[in-house]
């Protein structure tokens, strides 16, 4: 038949796509948007945005959400969904307080309980979803219901932790020397980071490493990309899915403890709608609900973007109450459209022109590479 290898590679060599994948492209959009948004806020409203503590508070206040969102990202990459995160978080806060205060428990013990609850949820949900093939949405929704129901069975009224060792731990802060702001009376208040932030950042890093460099992490992407193919490539699809839910459960447990460390309160209303916010953060960070694409770093910035939007709305001094939600909605809408339009343009190739020189260079190089 017809043939000419050299010619073929010549042709093929010309048609390489950009080396950055959509994943990292979306990640870049997210990061740039966040930085741009924050700088803009600093310029326009100043005030709190110039206060380093406010930036750190983004982390202080949302450490738990970051952790939940990380777990969710893992599950979403594998093509699933887990909406039990918020419920489990709330349950953990309540059970830990009851244990600490009513059963004079130790801090270590409560930590174990938190992890235990998380792992139990992950275990049960994981088994049901991956080994019995049940739709993850139903199971995790039921998980959320169950957790919320259990909270009030554990304690009908909201509680505040009083156990001394725990309160000390809760009040622990890292002070950043040299950075801070001045209070009303002219006293210097150093900027502070809560313990939870360290944990949350550690979680992000660990999960990022898992996703990028471990076999399990890569299997997640394969399963999310196409589970039939993954199966035939010799990946244990069920086990991979199972572990993803287990990890998400564990992270929800950790998130619960972080929540407790932040507020010290147990309440059925804790972390309401955290799951929706976590999903939103993950998606804003470039993770697809359909699976196979995503990164935790993106999710981290997703959380930051989402929360900065709220901050901006609060600061902007909108008095009419309904405008707050509407503005948040509009900003979200704007961001989503931006993401979609940029992606579409990129697909069309009109964006290629503006790409930096080194990419073009690499394309040329790889073209010649493949010619023997």
């Amino acid at each position, binding site marked *: 038949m017809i043939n000419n290898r050299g010619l073929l590679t010549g042709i093929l060599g010309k048609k390489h796509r950009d080396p950055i994948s959509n994943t990292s492209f979306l990640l870049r959009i997210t990061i740039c948007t966040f930085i741009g948004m924050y700088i803009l806020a600093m310029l326009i409203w*100043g*005030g*709190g945005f110039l*206060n380093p*503590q*406010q930036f750190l*508070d983004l982390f*202080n*206040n*949302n450490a738990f959400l970051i952790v939940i969102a990380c777990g969710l990202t893992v599950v979403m990459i594998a093509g699933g969904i887990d909406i039990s995160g918020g419920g489990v978080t709330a349950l953990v806060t309540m059970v830990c307080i009851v244990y600490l205060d009513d059963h004079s428990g130790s801090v270590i013990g409560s930590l174990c309980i938190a992890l235990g609850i998380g792992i139990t949820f992950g275990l049960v949900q994981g088994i049901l979803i991956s080994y019995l093939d049940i739709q993850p949405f139903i199971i995790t929704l039921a998980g959320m219901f169950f957790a919320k129901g259990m909270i*009030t069975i554990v304690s*009908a*009224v*909201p*509680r*505040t932790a009083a156990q001394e060792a725990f309160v000390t731990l*809760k*009040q622990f802060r890292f002070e950043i020397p040299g950075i801070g*702001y001045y*209070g*009303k*009376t002219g*006293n210097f*208040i150093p900027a502070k980071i809560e313990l939870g932030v360290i944990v949350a950042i550690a979680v992000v890093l660990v999960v990022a490493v898992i996703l990028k460099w471990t076999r399990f992490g890569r299997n997640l992407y394969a399963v999310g990309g196409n589970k039939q193919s993954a199966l035939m490539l010799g990946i244990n699809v069920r086990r991979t899915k199972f572990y993803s839910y287990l990890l998400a459960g564990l992270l929800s447990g950790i998130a619960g403890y972080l*929540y407790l460390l*932040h*507020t*010290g*309160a*147990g*309440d*059925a*209303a*804790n*972390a*309401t*709608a*955290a799951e929706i916010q976590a999903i939103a953060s993950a998606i804003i960070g470039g993770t697809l609900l359909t699976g196979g694409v995503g990164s935790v770093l993106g999710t981290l910035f997703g959380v930051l973007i989402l*929360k900065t939007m*709220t*901050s901006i709305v*609060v*600061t902007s*001094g909108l*008095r009419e*109450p*309904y405008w*707050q939600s509407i503005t948040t909605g509009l900003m979200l809408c704007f961001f989503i459209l931006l993401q979609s339009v940029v992606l579409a343009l990129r697909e069309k190739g009109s964006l290629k022109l503006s790409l930096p020189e080194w990419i073009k260079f690499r394309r040329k190089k790889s073209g010649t590479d493949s010619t023997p």
Partner: protein
Amino acid sequence: KSTKKGVIKVGIVNNPPSESGYRAANVADFEKVFTEANGYKVSTFYSLKNDEQLNAAAQFVTDGVDYLLISAAATDGWDTVLKSAKEAGIKVFLFDRMLNADESLYEAAVVSDMAKEGTTAVEWLKAQKLPEYNVIHIQGAMGSDAQIGRTAALDAEFAAGTMKKVVQQTATWDEATAKQIVESVINSKEKFNVIYAENDGMAKGAVAALDEAGITHGVDKDVVIMGFDCNKWALRELLAKNWNYDGQCSPFQASVIEEMIKKLEAGEKLSAKKVISEEKGFDARTITQADIDTYGLGE
């Protein structure tokens, strides 16, 4: 800092006005009092979610407001924020709802005494001298100050055995859910003669169920209807003798707080840590149109 001399920066954390008629009146009250014309620069944040409220309060602190006014969606988890406010020299007022934190962390609380509202209502109920009390108790969203206060009084009666609990369910302030709860009792054919709903909307839902089942309600009828908040439309139901009782919950705390702020600005000390709004309950037998005009919320 950026504040002009004489302008007082105030941050308000409240529940969204859409929560209830009560809340709408409350929000309107604060908007009326704390205006630029009166010398205030106000930022507000509305949410029913505890963590969002906490975040916003923290932001007001870092934003450097002079006064922070809080109506907490949930009572617990506030002390971290309050401490940082104290550290930054920001003065905190609580309004409408108490929260679970040390007294030293805030200047004063201007609140409704929800527990007292509950007791007033239950005392009224006892005074009706019904032959027996079979009560359907429809609760608000669990964990809110209003629910806790209004439930406590009735729970005490249930425990003492003076009243019988037919059913006690939360409808999370939702009218349609309240209707379903009552419907379910009717279908089970259990006897009841009192419906104690923790706000007006849920009472209205309950009444809709009674109407469909052909059960009469109101003054000298089969079932006694009790609600809270004193919405105008609810008080009109009282006037029409379709309902029996409505407990007031005063949403007007703004001017009291403003006075306190003025005092503090003038360098005076505050006299009381806790100011409790004057509230009463209305009986269908005694209510007048004048009452509706003075005390009714909404249009």
